[in-house]
């Protein structure tokens, strides 16, 4: 019995090591490197790299740009999913529809980005159709939808990848919360469809999916393949920027890459803390009531 207890304890320690050690080791190394305490060109403790990174306008711009793209993508995906779930509630029971909605989840980010590039770029499928239909008279006339300054291509790809998952997720909440019954009840009490949506359906779905939406904002923020294919150098999303800096031939850039990676992790942790805090508060208020 004692041996089994020791064995279990040992395995739990190994588990913690497997989960935490790689992350903490990487984190510590990055921290030391960014303070000039290790690395090929290390000259002892310095705040130079952090000062440079924190005052780097483009680093902050990248974080802001990533956050903006993630928030817009998740917001659009949420509304598309909401629309589909509320308009096509009964269709989810049909086998073909159920399978169809799962199809985009089979797409890796790389493939979806390739599709968007070949379809929405200036020489893409839709540009060619527009030319044949006479909407544009030359390739340059087609709007810049990929590798553009606003990240439209990145957002489009993110939405195409995220909305099917949200649709399935929101439909699950819809069923679990028996929203159909609430809707019928509110309408039988005289509420209009619009009132039912704003006062019943949306608040319930929003409350239940808020945390997942937040996690998806973080996931989209950290995406790499999509901005690599569909983004540009300025403004650039944060992950390609970090990788670019870390892999450049200029060794002076590496400490900044690590500082930027830590800065990004800090932003993500703040986002998580803010969300968790608001959730704790929400539940506290609920239990107080």
């Amino acid at each position, binding site marked *: 019995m004692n041996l089994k207890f020791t064995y279990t304890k040992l395995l739990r320690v190994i588990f913690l090591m497997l989960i935490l050690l790689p992350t903490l080791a990487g984190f510590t190394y990055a921290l030391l490197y960014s303070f000039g305490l290790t690395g090929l060109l290390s000259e002892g403790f310095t705040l130079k790299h952090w000062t440079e990174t924190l005052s780097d306008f483009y680093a902050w711009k990248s974080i802001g740009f990533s956050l903006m793209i993630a928030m817009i993508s998740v917001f659009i995906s949420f509304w598309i999913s909401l629309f589909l779930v509320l308009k096509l509630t009964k269709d989810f029971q049909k086998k073909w529809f159920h399978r169809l909605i799962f199809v985009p989840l089979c797409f890796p980010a790389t493939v979806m980005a390739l599709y968007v590039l070949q379809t929405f770029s200036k020489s893409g499928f839709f540009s060619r159709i527009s030319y044949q239909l006479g909407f544009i008279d030359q390739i340059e006339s087609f709007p810049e939808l990929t590798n553009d300054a606003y990240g439209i291509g990145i957002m489009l790809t993110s939405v195409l990848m995220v909305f099917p998952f949200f649709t399935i997720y929101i439909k699950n909440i819809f069923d679990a919360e028996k929203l159909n019954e609430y809707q019928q009840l509110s309408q039988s009490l005289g509420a209009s469809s619009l009132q039912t949506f704003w006062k019943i359906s949306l608040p319930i779905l929003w409350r239940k999916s808020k945390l997942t939406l937040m996690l998806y904002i973080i996931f989209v923020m950290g995406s790499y393949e999509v901005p690599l294919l569909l983004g540009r150098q300025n403004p650039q999303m944060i992950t390609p920027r970090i990788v670019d800096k870390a892999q450049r031939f200029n060794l002076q850039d590496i400490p900044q890459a690590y500082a930027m990676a830590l800065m990004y992790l800090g932003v*993500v942790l703040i986002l998580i803390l803010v969300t968790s805090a608001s959730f704790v508060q929400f539940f506290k208020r609920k239990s107080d009531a």
Partner: protein
Amino acid sequence: MLKRTIHLVLITLILLPILVLMMLSFGEQWIFPDVFPQNFNTKTWLKLFSSDSEISKSLGLSVLISLSVAFLSTLMAFVFSKVISTSKYKNQYIKLAYLPYILSPVVLGVLWHYFAVVLKLNASFFGVVLAQFLICFPFGFIILSSFWSRHIYDIQNLSFTLGASTYFSFKRIIFPLAKPILGLCFFQCFLISWFDYGLTQLIGGGQIKTLTLSVFNFIKEANIFLAAIASLLLLFPPLLLLFFNKKIKFKRSLINTH
């Protein structure tokens, strides 16, 4: 009428990517402003079967890496989920397992690169498998944690009461009960590895040419036809499974899996 329009838009939106990729994979010479490639043939697809084909090598390598990662992650996750399930800090352990996802695998790849170099694991098959394992294992753990419920322990205890040995109980009771969730976990880990680009690129240093890396290389070489074939090959396993096995759901969300 509105419903029909929504159906039509949705079908187009979802199936157009596959159709466009199919068109490109059979196409040759797609010069602006032609809507479709000038020629359609199977020439590019046939390259797949030639002995020195880069895509078939990448396909083989991707299958090998993904199967190794999925097997290793599922096995380890199953063992550790059992060990953690009896802990009073179970929820805290599960929360810790979310860490690699929240911190972005690519950023972790940047942070791990130095250690891969020191341990001579960079640009190697094992380095990539290990890096992907460190991402897949926590995910597998989260999935399998839901298996070890009170009910499972009750059944196991019942089998012990009836005289079953630990091995017999595992073989005849636990394993058959766990099979569906083990399948789900294996498939999810396989997909994470199968879809990965950033981590493989960083730890593999571009030397471990999986299918996702091939897609990027073909795009860089402006060979969209080969990129389309490699993309369709990437889509093949998940689509096949979706078609044949509707029981396996795609649990992308960390919330959903918990």
